[in-house]
């Protein structure tokens, strides 16, 4: 069974894949927006925490999304 962190990364990846047809940049933007709209603060925090966790390498696009989520949290 996946850990919660793995699951969040998986979820973000799945959302990304569904937006992939728009092109990578648009997909990352749409996924970020989706996460901001639907994920609870705990999940977002956990996702951001994974950015600094070196162990499970996040796929690049997921990392890009989480970075934007983090930036958004910082600006809020």
């Amino acid at each position, binding site marked *: 069974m*996946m850990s919660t962190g793995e*699951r969040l990364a998986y*979820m973000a990846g799945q959302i990304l*894949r569904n937006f992939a*047809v728009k092109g990578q940049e648009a997909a990352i933007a749409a996924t970020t927006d989706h996460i901001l*709209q*639907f994920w*609870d*603060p705990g*999940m977002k925090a956990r996702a951001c925490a994974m950015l600094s966790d070196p162990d499970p390498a996040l796929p690049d696009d997921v990392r890009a999304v989480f970075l934007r989520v983090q930036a958004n949290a910082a600006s809020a």
Partner: protein
Amino acid sequence: MTFTREKDFGTPEKHGETVSLTIDGQQVSVPAGTSIMRAAAMVDTAIPKLCATDSLESFGSCRMCLVEIEGRKGYPASCTTPVSPDMVVRTETEKLRKLRRGVMELYISDHPLDCLTCSANGDCELQDVAGSVGLRDVRFGYEGASHLEGCKDESNPYFTFDPAKCIVCSRCVRACDEVQGTLALTVDGRGFASKISASQDEGFLASECVSCGACVQACPTSALIENTVIEKGTPERAVVTTCAYCGVGCTFRAEMRGEDLVRMVPWKQGKANHGHSCVKGRFAWGYAQHRDRVLNPMVRASVDEPWREVSWDEAIAHVASEFRRIQNAYGTRAIGGVTSSRCTNEETFLVQKLIRQGFGNNNVDTCARVCHSPTGYGLKTTFGTSAGTQDFDSVEQADVVLVIGANPTDGHPVFGSRLKKRLRQGAKLIVIDPRRIDLVRSPHVEAGYHLPLRPGTNVALLTAMAHVIVTEGLVDEAYVRERCDGEAYGEWAAFVSEPARSPEAIEDLIGVPAADVRAAARLYATGGGKSGGRGAIYYGLGVTEHSQGSSTVMAIANLAMATGNVGKPGTGVNPLRGQNNVQGSCDMGSFPHELPGYRHVSDSATRALFEADWGTALDAEPGLRINNMLDAATDGTFKGIFIQGEDILQSDPNTTHVAAGLAAMECVVVQDLFLNETANYAHVFLPGSTFLEKDGTFTNAERRIQRVRKVMEPKNGYADWEVVQLVANAMGLGWTYTHPSQVMDEIARLTPTFAGVNYDVLEQRGSVQWPMNAAAPEGTPTMHIDHFVRGKGLFVVTDYVPTDERTGPRFPLLLTTGRILSQYNVGAQTRRTPNEAWHAEDRLEIHPHDAENRGIRDGDWVSLRSRAGETSLRALITDRVAPGVVYTTFHHPDTQANVITTDFSDWATNCPEYKVTAVQVAPSNGPSEWQKSYRAQAEQSRRIEPAEPAE
């Protein structure tokens, strides 16, 4: 309301230009086509009748309703004779009295005479008419040939057929044909020997009968009568209320003696069901009085302990203090709740209010998460509103109907009957479903196309249909230009036009011949091939419960927009909602990101409205979804949950994951009628009340808000909304509701789409469809009439992203799941009724080819294994499923089909992917080890410690 039969006009309502005539000297104006009988009834002239009833087309067999018409020879039957202008009709003359008495004399010469001890005594049309024609003596005597020796058929658990009481009016046969559409009844023989026969003159239970009750309702005597009436006598009052089973939202008259429910009879004025019902709503209400109901609150420190019955005060205080303790210890967001789609709008509103106002977070979710959350997302994105576009009446104007991932004759039977009626009238049908559902081919109904696609490939198929529609020039361009976002359309059209989206390119992927996909697309796009034809799409959980659920909903919306099939009757995108109030629970703000009326929690203006009303600040961040709550629980950050009327352990996917999450919590509060499976992991059990025991409203799949009316006191002491208020007040919220109508007033005050809704309006109109406000003072049967709610309809590119659940050598088969007519969801209600007679266990449907490969015979126990788990059930070998696909229902906890289902879910809403699981099937000896241990755990967990005897 005291008991009277609903007024019966004898023949169905007609719509036409007004015709004036004279009946017994009285001037009457009625629509052309109206029968004389109905015209008379409209001015309260009751022409005697036996074979006529206004739910059925006129038949003209009993010959009681003869009248005289000036200038016409003979004595025409008023039921079969339409009015004509300036007709002069007499309904009572010496000659007519004599003829009627003559016919009645014949009836009574072949009828039992024990009226006083008859179960229909006082509610028998034969008795009434015999009285009204003044029959005093039967000159033929009582010793001629007769049918008095006929044996009763008591095979159906809910009603009895006594052929001796039958007058062969064929109302039952016609009700089965015209209303239900099962055609399970016929007349056997002819002439004097005519008798009613179920299927091949067999018992009702063994016959094709689906026990909808239409025949019983139609019967003018006690030949077909509810067993409860035989047992209890005729009712003395009736209260109109709404069924608590599926999302069709049938209204019923609960016919009562005192506080005792005698029978539920579908209400003819009900706008969702128009007097029809199914076996569940009509008969399967015995669970409400079932001995398994828990009536006292119970508490325990640990789920290993037996339950301890406590007072309501103690239970409520315990809940409040536990929740506050947990929040103090683990944070505001460490608790949450689940609203119930079984409960009323007012109750769900209060639960989410408890969470938002009292818990101070947005950790509220509902069972719609696991069924129609993609509908909310998909239709909101494309059209602007998270709801179906039509009323059910709309189907009567559809020329082609596309049913995808739904099985209406089982899941939404009353709508299924209305759909079948339309199909019998000639509308065309397309079915997209891996399994050959009954609609594909059943008496007098046959789909033009059945596309038995591979489970999980909906998006690919729908996109291929879009490909055909766009590349073959079938788009309603004027509509798209006027009503939709042009840029998005352009992108979408370019996307679907790519050769890779063509039916030919995906033929192997979806397993459906390209020619069929093309033909079906053309049929839908051309309105059934009829000029100006209208196409309607109805869908169910076979659309939503996929990892691409939201994409599929949007793909459906795209098709409807491209063909101009949104915004008028006979068209639309219509989700068939699973539970009685799943639409309502979503409307009421049960999702963690939305306040009531589908407004995002981040919207500060909306929040401000609620904050002002509720006197507290609200969290602007979305809360946790159910599955995320369980994840968080496993992680140790989520510790307490209030679950009202939902059995997440049985109904949510990957049971072991759910169990682990629940087990990790410190306070699980379950409110339910029964000790359900989830309660095995609960620390507090609060007894729930049934829909018969409370006031409120349900909102059905057509956005129709209907009253639920209390017909008896709650056996557990409180209606559910009262219990929520007790909890809220124990947490210091100071609520003061004394009636659910006040809750509705609050909803209307805070939710623009409900602004015009209140109990007075519902009382007057029977029901209303939201949006109901200043802009739509009559409510809204059809949405998006002039423009989409979001402005321009938005085409969304829906790329087919395959699920990560894949078949392979270890799990070569695809499991998909569904329901059956006689059972309802996890079966908590229906399993506690005689409905078990029809479906006592879940079976695994498997194609003969796959069965043979595995050495499985029909009825064998088989193990069903997936990456998530294993269970056992008995096999049913059938070619309803394609090779490579297996199917089961999930009504029985012993089966635990959700042990098998995985964690995969819809990308946008996390609606679980119930419909696609890679599995292996093998012969087995019986229940699996897991099933046995689960059963033992459940038994252990359900123990209740006897209360201390009072001193």
